[in-house]
């Protein structure tokens, strides 16, 4: 390429740095743009080596990859690389390199056209483009960005964050309104986390319920990351992520797992009980029969015959009880209906009238709710069992006082049933109270069926029963009828 050809080539390219150099990298011709872009006069560059001007970190790349391609005769354009200016600073230049060949198709020279990519409008375009991409990607993933200006305490949201709140992009949140989008119970937690991030530099990452502008409740993950400089938070930003679907699914799964494991436990207990209690009378029968076979006197035979009758009778009773406990474990046959708790309580007190009068028992009602949609049979069984237990295991030293309290806790219907009876040693029997055929009071006979049954009723309906007791003080049962509703339910 002659000087003339080069000048012609450069004619309309005042903003581009155009260099013509030998395959070795030595400059042959440089256009006038070099002064404004690199600070060098073209004459100062000629004879110097192209590759010496690159930032040490970029040099390896351009020599190994780009130069190799060029020498293979391939045109290439490079991402912006740092080029050292006369004043020692670097400028980001993009590189288009064209190989120039001789008549033998050998690359003898290279021509590169470079553009300063860091012009203001280009940065702006690039920034906008990136923001749009981030926004789009974020929205696709249900993710939004947020930032808190620590001087004005004004939050800035990305489009994804607006979408998550179901808000128009023109809405301008302040910190209070932003926090008020969280469900009531979550606000303090979120505010606390933000405060800790600002004043102590502690990052946070939590999942909380949010109420959107359209009143929909959803679970969101909010991440906050403070940037701390010299012990002071100078910037706070983070992410919002819509995790409603996964959280709801997780909660549902948790509920199912709990129900299944409770049913599994009951089955295991049932199996255990079959092994102990059903095999036992059969073993007795077979022993009695073998004794009967070898009995010598009529008297002995008569005695064994009586025992056989007894054994068969106790087996009958056992089977009846078994049927009851099977019903307690499976809830297939029962249907919920609207019940009035007062009616249920009255029925139970009517059935236990004799004992109540005889023991001079007092029953207090503190009912925050009275209506409940639940299987009637279960409610009756729960009330009757708890009440008859409270009467049976009353203290010898005081008249029984039974208190039935109903209330709403976390949106669930709760009943607390407490007495001032003889209580149970929780340390010794705590884990066995609800087991089948467990009785704890020597003086008062029981079969150990009642609590097992009502626990079965309650858990099969997705509820929970917990006992608290102190010896000689009394016993308290906490029943949450619809515990399953607590998770993932609309607020």
């Amino acid at each position: 390429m002659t000087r003339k050809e080069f000048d012609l080539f450069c004619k309309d390219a005042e903003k581009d740095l155009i260099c013509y150099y030998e395959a070795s990298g030595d400059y042959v011709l440089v256009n006038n743009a070099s002064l404004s872009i690199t600070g060098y006069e073209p004459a100062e560059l000629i004879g110097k080596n192209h590759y010496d001007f690159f930032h040490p970190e970029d040099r390896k790349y351009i020599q190994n990859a780009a130069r190799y391609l060029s020498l293979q005769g391939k045109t290439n354009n490079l991402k912006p690389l740092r080029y050292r200016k006369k004043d020692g600073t670097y400028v980001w230049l993009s590189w288009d390199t064209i190989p120039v060949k001789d008549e033998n198709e050998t690359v003898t020279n290279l021509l590169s056209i470079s553009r300063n990519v860091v012009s203001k409008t280009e940065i702006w375009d690039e920034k906008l483009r990136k923001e749009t991409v981030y926004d789009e990607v974020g929205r696709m993933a249900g993710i939004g960005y947020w930032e808190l200006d620590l001087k004005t305490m004004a939050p800035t949201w990305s489009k994804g964050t607006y979408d998550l709140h179901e808000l128009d992009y023109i809405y301008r949140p302040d910190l209070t309104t932003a926090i008020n989008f969280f469900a009531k119970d979550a606000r303090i937690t979120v505010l606390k986390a933000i405060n800790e991030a600002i004043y102590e530099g502690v990052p946070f990452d939590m999942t909380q319920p949010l109420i959107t502008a359209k009143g929909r409740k959803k679970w969101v993950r909010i991440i906050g990351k403070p940037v701390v400089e010299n012990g002071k938070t100078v910037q706070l930003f983070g992410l919002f992520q819509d995790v409603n679907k996964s959280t709801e699914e997780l909660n549902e799964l948790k509920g199912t797992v709990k129900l299944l494991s409770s049913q599994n436990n009951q089955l295991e207990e049932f199996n255990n009980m079959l092994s102990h209690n059903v095999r036992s009378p059969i073993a007795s029968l077979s022993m009695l029969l073998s004794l009967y076979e070898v009995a010598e006197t009529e008297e002995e035979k008569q005695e064994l015959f009586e025992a056989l009758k007894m054994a068969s009778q106790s087996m009958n009773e056992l089977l009846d009880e078994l049927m009851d406990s099977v019903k307690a474990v499976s809830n297939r046959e029962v249907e919920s209906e609207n019940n009035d708790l007062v009616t249920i309580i009255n029925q139970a007190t009517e059935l236990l009238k004799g004992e109540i009068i005889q023991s001079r028992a007092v029953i207090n009602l503190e009912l925050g709710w009275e209506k409940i949609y639940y299987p009637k049979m279960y409610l009756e069984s729960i009330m009757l069992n708890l009440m008859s237990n409270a009467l049976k295991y009353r203290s010898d030293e005081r008249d029984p006082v039974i208190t039935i309290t109903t209330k709403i806790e976390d949106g669930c219907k709760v009943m607390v049933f407490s007495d001032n009876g003889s209580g149970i040693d929780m340390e010794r029997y705590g884990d066995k109270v609800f087991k089948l055929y467990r009785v704890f009071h020597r003086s008062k006979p029981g079969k150990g069926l009642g609590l097992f049954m009502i626990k079965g009723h309650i858990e099969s309906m997705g509820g929970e029963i917990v006992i608290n007791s102190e010896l000689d003080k009394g016993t308290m049962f906490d029943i949450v009828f619809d515990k399953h509703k607590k998770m993932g339910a609309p607020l």
Partner: protein
Amino acid sequence: MKPEIICIVDDDPIVHFTVTKMIESTLSVKKILVFDDGEQIFDYLYKNAANKDLLPDIILLDLNMPYMDGWEFLEEYAYLKPQLAKKITIYILSSSVSDFDIMNAMANRDVTDYIPKPLTKQKVEELFHN
């Protein structure tokens, strides 16, 4: 060694009756004592810990009983054992066929053997004659 005193610990009176009969018809022992649950036998042992003549040679222990079951008794017994004036052999006599019960019984160092109900004449002979 022929046992002199045998204790039957079971909450079922029919078991008291049948096991007593079965033992009496197989070998002669000085005394057979019956208890309804773990707590009763424990109280008896505790009270007579130093009295060699009243302590049993053998305990036939059921597992599933009210108040104090067989497992709870074994736990308490481990603490009482060093104070007992006599070496006592404990057999579990239970209707349970669950692996859990059998494994746990065999793993307990105070339990000599696990006998599933019903108890048979042969088993009694096998256990007490040698």
